[in-house]
């Protein structure tokens, strides 16, 4: 390269930086996750023994059992975060996933109680989530309404729908046909974790290995340019909100399976915020076009590690909120600082 002016030069630098960028983006929060794990091992040990020399050895955090619990706790947020990643990659947002999760859980448990139709519980819940997601997508893609407003509205409306489905009561089924999803495991790995990981892998393949995935990134990068290059932008938008709804439905199945029950009012409250936090912690750009699903997985794990670690350390509920908030802001600030000067936020 012969060019050597300021523009091109900083360009050349950016280039070396940017060829590493996908790696940095995925790796981005991994060190934070690992450091948090090590810290909590020490803290839990210290909380137990009040003695720093023994803290590491007596820590309760890094046990196989605890890590498995963390993975299970992270699983639903990971699934919601995966759907949210699709949406945020196009520059949108989906605030309705918590409500859709509640509605789908209601559908799942209610269907399982129907004699002769209980095998339809999971498909019905998934179909319900998908349908609600497609409603969001349709309004956004074809009526060109802003995603924030559409999903803010559907967050409220679907919450109402979820309560309506069970006449505003909690529905139980102690003989839930799909209970194994919430409580069983395969080869010693909980089904919840298997499902979450499979969701991430399939999402990655969709985003990085298919034409549609390329189109999702393109729409997020510049919707106008995408349309001019012959991409069917409305179809792409419909798809991402559909995926988000479908995965929220899957989240509903997972919640219901864990609890043997569903409640339209309480289930999934503010889950959308945790999902968004996971995506943002994972380094996905809020304006769209940049980000990866692996980042979201790490983001979801960070949130889960924080919650679990703080509980084990014995931090009060109130302080847990404050600390989690600051960790999210701090981690993203760190990320921005490290990637300062890259093309976009």
């Amino acid at each position, binding site marked *: *390269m*012969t*060019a*050597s*002016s*300021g*523009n*091109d*030069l*900083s*360009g*050349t*630098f*950016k*280039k070396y930086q*940017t*060829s590493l*960028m996908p790696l940095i983006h995925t790796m981005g929060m991994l060190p934070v996750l690992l450091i948090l794990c090590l810290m909590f091992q020490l803290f839990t040990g210290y909380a137990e023994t009040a003695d720093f020399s023994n803290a590491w050895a007596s820590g309760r955090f890094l046990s196989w059992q605890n890590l498995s619990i963390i993975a299970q706790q992270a699983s639903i947020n990971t699934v919601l975060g995966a759907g949210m990643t699709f949406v945020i990659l196009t520059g949108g947002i989906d605030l309705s996933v918590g409500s859709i999760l509640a509605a789908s859980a209601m559908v799942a448990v209610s269907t399982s109680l129907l004699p002769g139709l209980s095998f339809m519980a999971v498909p019905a819940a998934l179909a319900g989530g998908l349908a609600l997601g497609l409603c969001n997508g349709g309004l956004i893609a074809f009526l060109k309404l802003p995603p924030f407003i559409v999903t803010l509205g559907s967050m409220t409306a679907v919450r109402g729908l979820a309560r309506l489905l069970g006449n505003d009561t909690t529905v139980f089924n102690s003989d839930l046909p799909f209970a194994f999803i919430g409580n069983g495991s395969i080869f010693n790995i909980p089904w919840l974790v298997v499902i979450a990981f499979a969701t991430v892998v399939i999402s990655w393949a969709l985003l990085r*290995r*298919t*034409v*549609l*995935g*390329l*189109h999702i*990134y*393109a729409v997020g*990068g*510049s919707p*106008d*340019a*995408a*349309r*001019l*290059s*012959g*991409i*069917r932008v409305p179809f792409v938008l419909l798809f991402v909100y559909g995926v988000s709804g479908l995965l929220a439905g899957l989240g509903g199945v997972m919640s219901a399976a864990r609890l043997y029950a569903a409640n339209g009012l309480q289930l999934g409250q503010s889950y959308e915020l945790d999902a968004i936090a996971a995506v943002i912690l994972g380094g996905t*750009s809020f304006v769209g*076009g*940049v980000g990866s699903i692996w980042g979201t997985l790490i983001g979801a794990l960070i949130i889960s590690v924080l919650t679990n670690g703080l509980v084990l350390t014995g931090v009060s509920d109130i302080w847990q909120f404050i600390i989690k908030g600051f960790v999210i802001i701090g981690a993203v600030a760190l990320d921005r600082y490290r990637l300062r000067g890259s*093309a*976009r936020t």
Partner: protein
Amino acid sequence: MSEIEIRSAAPILEMRNISKTFGKLKALRNVQFGIVKGEVHALMGENGAGKSTLMKILAGAIRPDAGSEILIDGHPVAMAGPMAAKELGVAVIYQELSLSPNLTVAENIYLGREIQGKGLATGWLDRMAMIKGSADVLQRLGASFTADATVCDLTLAERQLVEIARAVHSNSKILIMDEPTTTLTERETERLFTIIRTLRAEGLAIVYISHRMEEVYELSDRVTVLRDGTYVGTLETHGINPGAIVQMMVGRDISSFYKKNHDAHQLRGRSILSVKGMSDTGRVKDCSLELHENEVLGIAGLVGAGRTELARLIYGADKSICGSVAVDGVATRIATPLDAIRAGILYLTEDRKELGLFLDMSIGENINVGVAARDAHLGWLLNFAKGRERSGQAIKELNIKASSAKVLVGSLSGGNQQKVLLSRLLELNPRVLILDEPTRGVDIGAKSEIYRLIDDLAKKGIGVIVISSELPELIGICDRVLVMREGRIAGELGGPVNAAINQHNIAAILTAAPECDGPEPRFAQNTQQESRAS
């Protein structure tokens, strides 16, 4: 100002031994630059020659290496930051204007130096005083808007004037203008030149960065040329040969800058694109055109004449209210860009950063995004091998300067970005290529490569429509030129039956007084042309 005066005058600014190193790369090596009061000094060089770096150093945006010297009025100064530069009287008018569009002209002019009320009113804005204070400057610059106008209601040219007013108002002594005419129409450019001349007469020193030879020739007193971060030389503009500057800039002789080796007149046979009666809701009125195999058809016109709008209608990017398109003689319904692409019509946007490229995506992805669906396994799995092959070949054939196809497009220079966007279109095997300002913001080397590419495409039988505001470009590469005015095709030049394509003939059609609504009798009427051609 005469040459003798310039030589004898004490320079208001001197930059000596300016070097700037980014990591291992030297962006500038011992560059010198000087300017005297009342001078317009052009700074030229290809993209990547170091103009922007030099000006950023002058504006305090970046610090030069140790050993670099900047003297203002003979005193060494340290440009510690943008504020320091401003206080020393250096003002920059950037390509991307830096006004707050939601504020008024007066508020923008006083931004950061607002007038406050006195006594009890301290802390409260004194808008009246600000409007009065800026009215004077605006009048001096011949502004047609008032100080209480909101900036977002102004045209780009008017906004630029606000920027200049702000610089003048803060008593700047040195004004840096970075490609100020790229977004202006010819008439607006003329007005800008008048203003620059006024400022020069008032004793301002103006650094003028431009790619356009004619402007530099017309406006500047001296020209400094940079190449690859080094100082090539400073010439007095008066009496120099433009070819000499080009040679200094590129370091080689560009004997045939424009290429027109294809011969459309002999080969002119089949019509491949026929547009009839294309209209939208007001910006495009009843436009018809005919494009042949092997032909390069130019569309000239002032900004706002409806050229881009017409192209977007043909491409299906906007909705037309009437009009038909036939490709290879077959009537084709084009409602979306996808329809156009399937019919073999491709459009290169004039705004590659906003409407063309995906700046956060790699060169490879940008080149393949259009063709990915055609190459895909099973119709939906990305074919990476084919993609790599395509991007590798495009990088080689179009001479895109980048270390690999994985480089993000946002980090490339304008010329290389344009080549990436062009390759995206070429991968889709176009029959008809509509290029909207294909060389805007592109350096001179890449420009000549793009001309050669257009010529090659025409040789292969592709029909190319070139929309351009640069008349020499249209004259240099087109077989026929349509001139648009106020949404209509007002005339046609070139081809066997029309007047010759030259600057005079184009300008005559461009500037014809607006007719009352109705067909234009003045020049060969377009509909007749079309029937003859087809």
